[in-house]
């Protein structure tokens, strides 16, 4: 039993997750009406991305500015299935070609493109939600990490990929739904996802999946692999010289992060009822990094909370004060990066250890320098801050 709890970061780690579980599954549903709960469910889907970023960026030292790509791929796979189910010949009989999604008909397509065909099957869709983003992440990661491209270069290239995918989706309107995305989704295997009851079920499913992701994240961080990740982040060459295949470790953690993001994307589509390229682009992707940074890049629970709190603040602030939100967001970002590199989780753990001086603080040393490798890649030499 003790070994089991230790695998997830000890008792305190499990207590954190239990508290989160209680808040998400008991307190929130009991105190909010379904419209708001559905919104909360939407924020939680960003938490999946943030958990992935903790592993990949906080522990692996790989900053990906293209997590929106994987979020979007997962979301689009799910949306394609739902759209096909909504486009039965009976429902679309006013179209020139009945039985294909409405936007294809508007763009003069007369038959379903080949890559849409497999999405008639639910089993394939579930497989694709995980496999398509994982494959792309593997491809990108393998190509880059094997050549020891890292740090800044990786960030710029993943960002470029996010931009490319957005332009592609917007440009190929007939195949993808263009800028509007895939909208008007109705049923999942004949079950109407727009009713209040369905929204409750989907919210709970999303919570459970998120809790599993949190547990998986904790497990990875506290495993031997997690320690290797930290070693790799701080002293990549030493890990390589000790005989570990650094590139493979990076590829693995990047694929892991992309799979988490994709699961989040699929739940996003289910709960919100559409998917569009705005959730893929460079801005959306970098916002996901903000969630993670604000919550705490070294704590899966912190990052999940960060995603939830920041996107909640975004919705409520940008509704009432649309001019202020970008300034708040920018200032938050600068503040977190400059003064609280460990985010909310770092603040909480510092404060907690002050309150209970007897307890040994489990927090990581605050002076970590995650980017030794990328600095040398950028062609500059180390410099201490003045």
């Amino acid at each position, binding site marked *: 039993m003790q070994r089991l709890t230790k695998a997830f970061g000890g008792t305190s780690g499990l207590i954190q997750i239990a508290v989160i579980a209680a808040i998400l599954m008991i307190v929130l549903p009991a105190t909010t009406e379904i419209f708001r709960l559905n919104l909360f469910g939407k924020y939680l889907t960003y938490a999946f991305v943030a958990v992935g970023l903790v592993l990949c960026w906080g522990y692996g030292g790989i900053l990906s500015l293209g997590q929106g790509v994987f979020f979007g791929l997962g979301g689009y796979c799910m949306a394609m299935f739902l759209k096909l189910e909504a486009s039965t010949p009976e429902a679309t009989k006013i179209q020139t070609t009945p039985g294909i999604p409405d936007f294809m008909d508007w763009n003069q397509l007369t038959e379903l493109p080949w890559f849409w065909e497999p999405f008639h099957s639910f089993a394939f869709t579930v497989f694709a939600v995980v496999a398509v983003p994982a494959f792309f992440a593997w491809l990108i990661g393998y190509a880059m990490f094997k050549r020891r491209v890292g740090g800044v270069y990786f960030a710029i*290239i993943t960002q470029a990929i996010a931009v490319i995918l957005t332009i592609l989706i917007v440009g190929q309107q007939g195949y993808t739904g263009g800028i509007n995305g895939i909208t008007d989704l109705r049923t999942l295997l004949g079950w109407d996802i727009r009713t209040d009851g369905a929204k409750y079920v989907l919210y709970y499913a999303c919570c459970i999946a998120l809790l599993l992701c949190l547990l998986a994240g904790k497990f990875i961080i506290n495993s031997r692999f997690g320690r290797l990740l930290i070693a790799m982040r701080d002293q990549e060459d030493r890990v390589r010289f000790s005989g570990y295949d650094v590139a493979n470790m990076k590829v693995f953690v990047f694929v892991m992060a992309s799979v988490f993001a994709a699961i989040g994307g699929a739940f996003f589509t289910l709960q919100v009822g559409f998917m569009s390229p705005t959730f893929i682009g460079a801005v959306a992707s970098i916002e996901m990094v903000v969630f993670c940074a604000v919550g705490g890049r070294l704590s899966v629970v912190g990052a999940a909370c960060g995603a939830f709190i920041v996107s909640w603040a975004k919705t409520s602030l940008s509704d009432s004060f649309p001019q202020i939100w970008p300034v708040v967001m920018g200032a938050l970002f600068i503040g977190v990066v400059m003064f609280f590199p460990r985010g909310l989780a770092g603040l909480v753990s510092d404060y907690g250890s002050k309150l209970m001086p007897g307890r040994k603080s489990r927090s990581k040393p605050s002076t970590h320098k995650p980017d030794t490798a990328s600095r040398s890649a950028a062609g500059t030499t180390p410099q201490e801050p003045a």
Partner: protein
Amino acid sequence: MGDFTAQELTAIFVMQGFSGLSLFCVFLLMALGLAIIFGQMGVINMAHGEFLTLGAYITYLVSYQAAEWGATALTWYFPVAIVAAFIGTFALGYLVERFMIRYLYNRPLDTLLATWGLGLILQQVFRSIFGPREKTVTMPDWLLGSYRATDMIDIPLNGLFILVITLVLTLALFALLYRSRWGIKVRATTQNRGMANAAGINTDRVDRMTFALGCGIAGVAGAAFTTIASTGPTTGSLYIVDTFLVVVFGGAASLLGTVVSAFGIAQSQSILSFFWSGSMAKVFTLLTVVVILMLRPQGLFASKVRR
């Protein structure tokens, strides 16, 4: 392609090539500033596009004032606008380095995030001051019209003008980096910071001036930008991802590489967009660059820097 005669095809290539040259100028003007900030200092400035926008807005203000003063002022305001744009963005860059960037030198990924936050704030400030609508400057008479080389080839004068500015600025930067004392200090700092310090170079000061100069060049780029397009709060950020690719593709610390890659990316995008849709041309160009970067991460012109 069979529908075109050889003469028409040549005309198309020249005209598309020239519109590619305008895009090349925008890329290069923006990339020059980024290249010295990123290439020489290793700092990623995501707010670089906003510095360009600031330069463009300063030019707009100067032209607005010149229009009040009358026709003579309007004819000759542009040189003043360039200087004003340079001073404004240089000063802002100096302050940003002094109060933000220098605390983050050992964390390049964090400079990326912090400057992105700065960019957001600046965009909102622009929106509050100038409004969300795009602003167009009043152009001096001598920039309007076009030069007709043949019956089918028509080259706009403002395109030629921005080309001249780009060339002058590039040459000036080359001279500054490779032919001046300051350039020696910058290159020494890049190549070996410890030794540069030991040789009596104040590297903190060099960093500050390099960053401010990069921002100042973005301001001049913004001034030049106003002659070919109108300015909105998000104008600069539209080009930031492309520009980063330009810099990385060229090889981070190589100015020559930046010039070549800006030319290649802009031309292929422009010429392809005649035969395909604009979005597919862009997708194809960017994808090619990304694939080449995966195969050759050091970029086209690898610099010989001691790692």
